[in-house]
């Protein structure tokens, strides 16, 4: 404690974010050194503020960024590899010096051994070439996988991006109505839903998406609230696998969601046949 006078919360927050300078910075820093209460408050504020970065719009990593990082890592590791090789070269030089005084019989023996070694080196070179070829093939496959993953990420980011422009095309002069589009793969239990022109709800209410199977109770598939423009999305909610949907429905429920639908159905749709 520090005489009962504490640093204001907003000053602590700016200190935690590194936004204070000069006298203000010195004042807060000095106070913190002797005030456990303010240290505690700073910890709590810092924890809350650290999550604000998640409020940023999600963007996929540029496609080549991963390879670039790996290159930097390899470059950094290479000098170490060179320094490990160097003593081996020195050793072989020393070895040559020693041959000047070792008996010729041993030298001849070494020469015979060298022939055998030459054969072995050739074999190893072939193996090395084969492994290089396989490595290049793996790298190409990895590159293709990364490109596919990057594309999938872009698709997902587009679907989720709050700033993406969305439009539902309707017949001319038809007023915009609340609509929803569900894409559901029953065998994998994967679902993406996008809603448009949804009406805003009171604080204590939320929309809840349901997968209604042919037999059995409706399965909850996500609770959501639309943004100011009425858009909303539910991406990959946890769902059981292998349950085809007879109908998709959206109800208005309590904000925390419910296990069984209680509120009125505001949207519903039957999956198109043929899927």
């Amino acid at each position, binding site marked *: 404690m520090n005489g009962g006078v504490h640093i204001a919360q907003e000053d602590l927050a700016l200190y935690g974010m590194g936004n204070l300078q000069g006298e203000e910075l010195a004042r807060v820093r000095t106070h913190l050194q002797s005030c456990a209460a303010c240290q505690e408050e700073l910890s709590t504020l810092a924890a809350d503020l650290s999550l*604000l970065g998640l409020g940023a719009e999600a963007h996929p990593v540029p496609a080549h960024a991963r390879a670039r990082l790996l290159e930097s890592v390899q470059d950094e590791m290479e000098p170490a590899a060179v320094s490990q090789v160097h003593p081996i070269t020195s050793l072989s030089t020393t070895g040559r010096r020693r041959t000047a005084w070792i008996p010729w019989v041993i030298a001849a023996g070494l020469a015979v051994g060298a022939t055998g070694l030459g054969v072995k080196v050739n074999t190893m070179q072939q193996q090395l070439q084969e492994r290089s070829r396989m490595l290049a093939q793996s790298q190409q496959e990895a590159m293709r996988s990364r490109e596919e993953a990057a594309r999938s990420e872009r698709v997902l980011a587009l679907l989720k991006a709050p700033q993406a422009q969305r439009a539902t095309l309707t017949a001319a002069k038809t007023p915009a109505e609340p609509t929803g589009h569900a894409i559901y793969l029953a065998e994998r239990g994967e679902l993406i839903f996008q809603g448009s022109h949804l009406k805003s709800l009171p604080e204590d209410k939320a929309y809840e998406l349901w997968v209604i199977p042919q037999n059995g109770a409706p399965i909850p598939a996500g609770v959501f609230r639309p943004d100011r423009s009425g858009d909303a999305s539910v991406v990959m909610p946890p769902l059981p696998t292998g349950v085809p949907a007879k109908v998709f429905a959206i109800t208005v429920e309590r904000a925390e969601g419910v296990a069984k639908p209680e509120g009125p159905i505001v949207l519903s749709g039957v999956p198109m046949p043929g899927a």
Partner: protein
Amino acid sequence: MHVTKDRGNPRSSYVLALKSCILWQERRKTALMTDDSDNPMGLPLRSQKNVPSSKRGEPVDDDLLLRRVSQKDSSALTKLFDTYGGMVYSVALRVLHDAARAEDLLQEVFFQLWRKPESFVSGRGSLGGWLLVVTRNRAIDILRRKRPTESVDDNLLASAESLASEVEREAMMQQVRRALVGLPAEQRHILELAYFEGLSHTEIAERTGQPLGTVKTRMRSGLMSLRKALQA
């Protein structure tokens, strides 16, 4: 449906529900990979995270990956990059508004993690939370053409919320966005100016044309509302 609270700091039931989904998904993954003998008690996977040696010898949690990074295992670094790269890049881009500079920062953050994995101290938050803070602070330094923030990185504190899986990140992302959208526009704007542009009270007052006292009051209210929304 299982709902597990990690700490004594309960979040909203919405997030708890999402976390239960995480456990469900993790259990589903486990079911795909293992037989019941791996988990005879049916424990949530989280309870098994610290088991020192898995049958597959394939450590997946952040601590183990960091340990492998400190042993110069580049595949562990790429796993961390695959997990957190998008989040880091998004924050960098939001602050810098420049894709090339954001990517440079993305590289810098992960290269530093490679060179100095010990910079992350697990007692000060989760790895995901720490990366968010490091990225944001460094981006602000770049934006304001400052040298790397002195001593802050050594002492920085971050949320302990795990962001290691996509579902956890998505749940927390939605909660933060809901918290921000729930704030009055002026409070949100002030918090964003402080967080994403690194402005002080005086600078925010100049930028917005609001009196200094109003800026402080609104920031305080915004912080309190944010806390309430994140801990409700």
